Each structure stands twice: as structure tokens, then as C-alpha cells.
């Protein structure tokens, strides 16, 4: 049966090749196998790659989220650690007060946007740099780039998966703030927070690709991440209110994106209307950092492991 069919097919193909005036045999031949496999494997169903860039992007995001959620270290640092830190800081220092944008606030309320900023940076920078560098050095990125998938889908998928994580953590921290510490956010301020989370996450994701492009090994990733971020946590209004810091430290901090992310979130935590809660200048600085990092990444980032073998 099979033999008869294949013979028929061959006869048809020979006739077809003879009929087409200038079709070179070789050009026609590669097509059937892949087509047969395609029609056979998914009758009436398109693959993500066949369904357009958005379908493919959703496919990538789904698997990136799955992988991230199953990573116990990422789970601890992105979910558990910010919550633990918030509970400790609010528990120990929560009864004091500080001033944010001219408004007196309880320290427990000050820590909620501060820890939120830290949690975004943990997901979109600390975890991301390590995961990009290790995927590159273990050949995973190279193997993915050996397939037809584009760099845009891989990078965009990872950025979106990170955004889903930071958005979820924002919701979790705001809910804990509300029910444990009586911290409420007006709808206008919530929109401002959402804008900040999006701009902040995407900017830090760009910075991650730039940093991952500049470092040559996974071993270097963790110390570099901590060295770049830890000092800034102390001087950027994450753990210590800005009014307790000297002007010099404050002006140093204002150069870096950490302070602007924290500042934008703090602003939204003390105002209720969108216009008062929205911080265009901070978001602009974040966006500039993001774009500059993207430019560096475009020049320096490689998909191949850094140790080349002959």
C-alpha cells in the first residue's frame, strides 16, 4: 500500500518536474518532507511559530515563567525574601515616622514602596543577569538561536515574563500592606504605580542584558550584581529614608536608576490623584538608563558562550 502510494507520488513528482519549465529539481525536492511532517503532526492546528509573532511571544513567556517559577532560588529571592524583609523592617522600625514629598508617613508605610522597588530590582536585574549569563555560558542561548526563533522573541519573552513576575509581586506587597499595615492606595496612585512598575521593569531588564554582555562568566555575575546594587539600596530610600542621608549621598544616588524607581513609588504612596502621584522625571531617568543599556547590549551582548573553542 505504502509502496504503491510512494510510487504514485514519485511518478507525479517526475511529471511535475518535467512540466515546470525551468524549475530545478533540487529546488523543489526539499519541500515535501517538511510539509508532510507539518500537515501530519498538527492537523488543523497551527504551531506558535506559524501563528504570528504575538502567539510565539506568548509561547516563550509561558515557558520562561514556568522555568522561573520552578527555580527554588528565584522563588525565594523574588517572592519570600521581600516579604520577610518588609515584615522585619516594619516590625522593628515601623512606629517611627519620616517625610516623603512633604507628607509625614509612618515608617511601616515608607517601607512598602521601598521594598517594592527592591523586589522589582531583584526580579528584573539581580535574578535576570544571573539567569541570562548562565543560559549563555551553558550554551542554552546558542542552542535557541540555532532555531528559527528571533532575538526579539527571546528577549521580549523574557522581559514580559519578568513584567508578569514584578506585577504579581506588586499586587502581593500592596495587599500585605493593606491588610497588615493599613496602607491604602487610591486608584489614581495605583495607575501611577503601574506605570512605574512597567517602565522600571523594562529598564532594568535592558540593564541586565547590558551587564550580562559585559561580564564573561557566571561566577562573576552574582558578585557584580550584589556589588552594583547593595550600596545603592542603602542610599536610595529603599531601607533608609532619604531625610536621614547626607546631601552628598543623595546626589550620588540620584545618578543611578535605583533611586528613581524608589522615588517614583514613594511619590505614588503619599498622593491619591494620578497627577500628583505620577513622577515623569523619575520615569524619564529610568527610561534613559534603559535605552543607554539597550544600546550597550546591542553592541556587546553575545549569544555564544564567552570561551571560544577551536
Amino acid at each position: 500500500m505504502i509502496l504503491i502510494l510512494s510510487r504514485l507520488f514519485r511518478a507525479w513528482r517526475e511529471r511535475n518536474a518535467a512540466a515546470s519549465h525551468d524549475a530545478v529539481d533540487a529546488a523543489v525536492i526539499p519541500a515535501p518532507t517538511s510539509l508532510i511532517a507539518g500537515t501530519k503532526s498538527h492537523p488543523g492546528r497551527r504551531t506558535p511559530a506559524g501563528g504570528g509573532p504575538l502567539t510565539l511571544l506568548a509561547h516563550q513567556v509561558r515557558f520562561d515563567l514556568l522555568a522561573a517559577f520552578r527555580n527554588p532560588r528565584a522563588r525565594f529571592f523574588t517572592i519570600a525574601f521581600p516579604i520577610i524583609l518588609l515584615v522585619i523592617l516594619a516590625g522593628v522600625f515601623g512606629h517611627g515616622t519620616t517625610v516623603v514629598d512633604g507628607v509625614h508617613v509612618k515608617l511601616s508605610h515608607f517601607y512598602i514602596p521601598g521594598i517594592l522597588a527592591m523586589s522589582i530590582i531583584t526580579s528584573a536585574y539581580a535574578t535576570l543577569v544571573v539567569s541570562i549569563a548562565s543560559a549563555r555560558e551553558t550554551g542554552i542561548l546558542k542552542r535557541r538561536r540555532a532555531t528559527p526563533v528571533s532575538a526579539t522573541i527571546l528577549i521580549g519573552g523574557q522581559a514580559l515574563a519578568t513584567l508578569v513576575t514584578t506585577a504579581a509581586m506588586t499586587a502581593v506587597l500592596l495587599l500585605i500592606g493593606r491588610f497588615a499595615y493599613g496602607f491604602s492606595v487610591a486608584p489614581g496612585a495605583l495607575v501611577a504605580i503601574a506605570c512605574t512598575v512597567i517602565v522600571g521593569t523594562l529598564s532594568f531588564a535592558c540593564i541586565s542584558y547590558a551587564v550580562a554582555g559585559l561580564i564573561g562568566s557566571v561566577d562573576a555575575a552574582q558578585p557584580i550584581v550584589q556589588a552594583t546594587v547593595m550600596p545603592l539600596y542603602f542610599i536610595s530610600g529603599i531601607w533608609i529614608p532619604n531625610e536621614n542621608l547626607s546631601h552628598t549621598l543623595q546626589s550620588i544616588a540620584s545618578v543611578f536608576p535605583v533611586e528613581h524607581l524608589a522615588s517614583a513609588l514613594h511619590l505614588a504612596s503619599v498622593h491619591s490623584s494620578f497627577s500628583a502621584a505620577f513622577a515623569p522625571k523619575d520615569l524619564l531617568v529610568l527610561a534613559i538608563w534603559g535605552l543607554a543599556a539597550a544600546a550597550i547590549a546591542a553592541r556587546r551582548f553575545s549569544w555564544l558562550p564567552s570561551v571560544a573553542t577551536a
Partner: protein
Amino acid sequence: MTVPPAVLTVAGMLTNSLEVAMAQRQAANTPNEAVIAVRGLRKRYGSDEAVRGIDLEVRRGEIFAFLGPNGAGKTTTVEILEGFRTATAGTVEVLGADPANAPAHWRERIGVVLQESQAEPGLTVRECLQLYSGYYRAPRPVDETLALVGLREQADQRATSLSGGQRRRLDVALALAGDPELVFLDEPTTGFDPSARRLAWEVIAGLREIGKTVFLTTHYMDEAERLADRIAVIAAGRIVASGTPQTLGDRNLSAARISLTLPHDASIRDLPEPLAERAQGQGGGHVLIESHTVAADLHALSGWALARGFDLDDLDVTRPTLEDVYLSLTQSETATETARSQR
């Protein structure tokens, strides 16, 4: 890739098992079509020239082994063929396109197993394959590919929990996800124990059965001998020999060696006339005879032994093994290279 609409109609009518028959037929029909054509390829890293002008041709449906010691330029060449590096000089054509400037859909038709790549963290074996299948417009069915590489029972295990051999077979499965025509395997069994190698070999030999063209790099002679239809040997960036496993380095034409031990009361001079001249004493009565006419020499030898009434207990006839040929080829080239660079 332009496809006449009639192909789509016929393709839609074809049944599952026919795919294999078709693929084999297709391979059989066009045995001389070059899938890879390389001319005068050079690659320089700074002042170091890793590849020094090589020519290669790989035909549809064959397993082509690219054999050479570590650092000979194998991986550099493969990376150029895969489009990861650009050539310094020469022309490269893979499936009709220059890999360095190939259009995106070119990658639909190739599969790549890298020399070193680890499993996707956090995903199960099946999920890894689903992820990669999604990158292609016409992927193979996931479960069929898992069965092909023998990982059906591990489908729901985390990929990172697999053994080395299983992980390598997952790499092969990922390379097959898009149902490619051409598969690159870069040192697929390095560091394997013998049973894992055997399993991997079965998988690779299976690729030929489903009509794939395979470009295999290895530094194991037995691997090339066992799997390849044709072999090219590279040493210090140059092709030093090419041929089938049987003819490589004129192995089939070189002299056979007949070895035996003489009885106590006989010496080399007692051997029949034509053999006595060529025989070399090895001490302790051991004798080695180089022979281009094995049948005649053995006939003379056995007649002589029968007449004298003793058995040829340890008679042995050998030809140089592929390993002998390979070692002599790669050593002489590397030695010449060293001498040249010292000058």
C-alpha cells in the same frame, strides 16, 4: 522556499508511515545533491589561522564524519556551517544558502547539537521539546521524537535530572524538533561510557533511516567507522584525507601483515621461496610478512606447514586499522605544522 500548490494537496493525503518511506526515497533519489559545499574555507582569529583552506562536500542522505584531534578546527568549521561565525575567506553553501546571511526560514531546515549545551533549567523533557517545537512552523510530533531518541519514559522528568547520555539524546531530540533536513552533531559522545555511546550511535544511525543528512564531528575513529558513509580527516586546519571508512588513507590498498611463529626446528630460510625473501624475524621465532597477495601467500604457507606436519597456531592476518591510518595522518600533519611554526 516556493512550493507548487499541488504538493500541498498530495502532502495532505499522505499517511503517517509514508513519511519515512518518502524520506528514504527522497534521499535515494538524489544521492548526489550537495547539501553542504565548501570551497577554500579559511578562518583566522587574530594571527592564528584555525582553518587553512578546506574543501568539503556533503551529499543528501549521508552521514558525513568530520574527524580530527582536539583543536584541529572542527568546531570552528561547524560553527561557520551553522551560521554562528563568518568565514575569513572561501565560499560556504549549506542547503543552497550562505549560512552567514541565510534568511530566517533557512533555520527551519537545519538542526544543531552543540558540543556543549546544558538542559533548560526547570522544564521537563517533554516541555523542553514543546518549547523548541513551537519555534518551527512544521515541527515533528513531540512524542514521536521522544520515542526516536529513547526518552519516552523520561518525558515527565526534569531535563536537569537526566544522566549525561540521556541529556545528549535530549539534545538530539531538540535538534530534530523542527524536522530538519540536515543535522549537525558536534562531538555527540565525548565523555560517554561504552553503553551510553552505543545507545547514542543507535540514535544517530536512526537519523539516516528517517532520511536526514548528518554532519558529525568526532575525535573517535570507531565512531566514524561505525556510523559514517564518508569521512574527512582534519589536522591543524587542513583536510589531510577523505574517503569511505574502508578506503580512507588508501587503507584498502596498503599491504596486509601476516604474522606467525615458526616451530623450533625451522628458520626463516626454510620458508617457501617467495615468502623467505619478504619475511622479517621479530625474535623468539616470530615472523612478520608484508603481503599484497594474501591468498597466494597463505596458500604457500599452509602447504609448507602441512608438509612439515605442524599447525600454524598463532597465524594472524591484519590490515592497518582506521585508527592506525588516522594517527599517522594527524601526527605527521601536526609534526610538520610544529616544525613550520618553529622555523
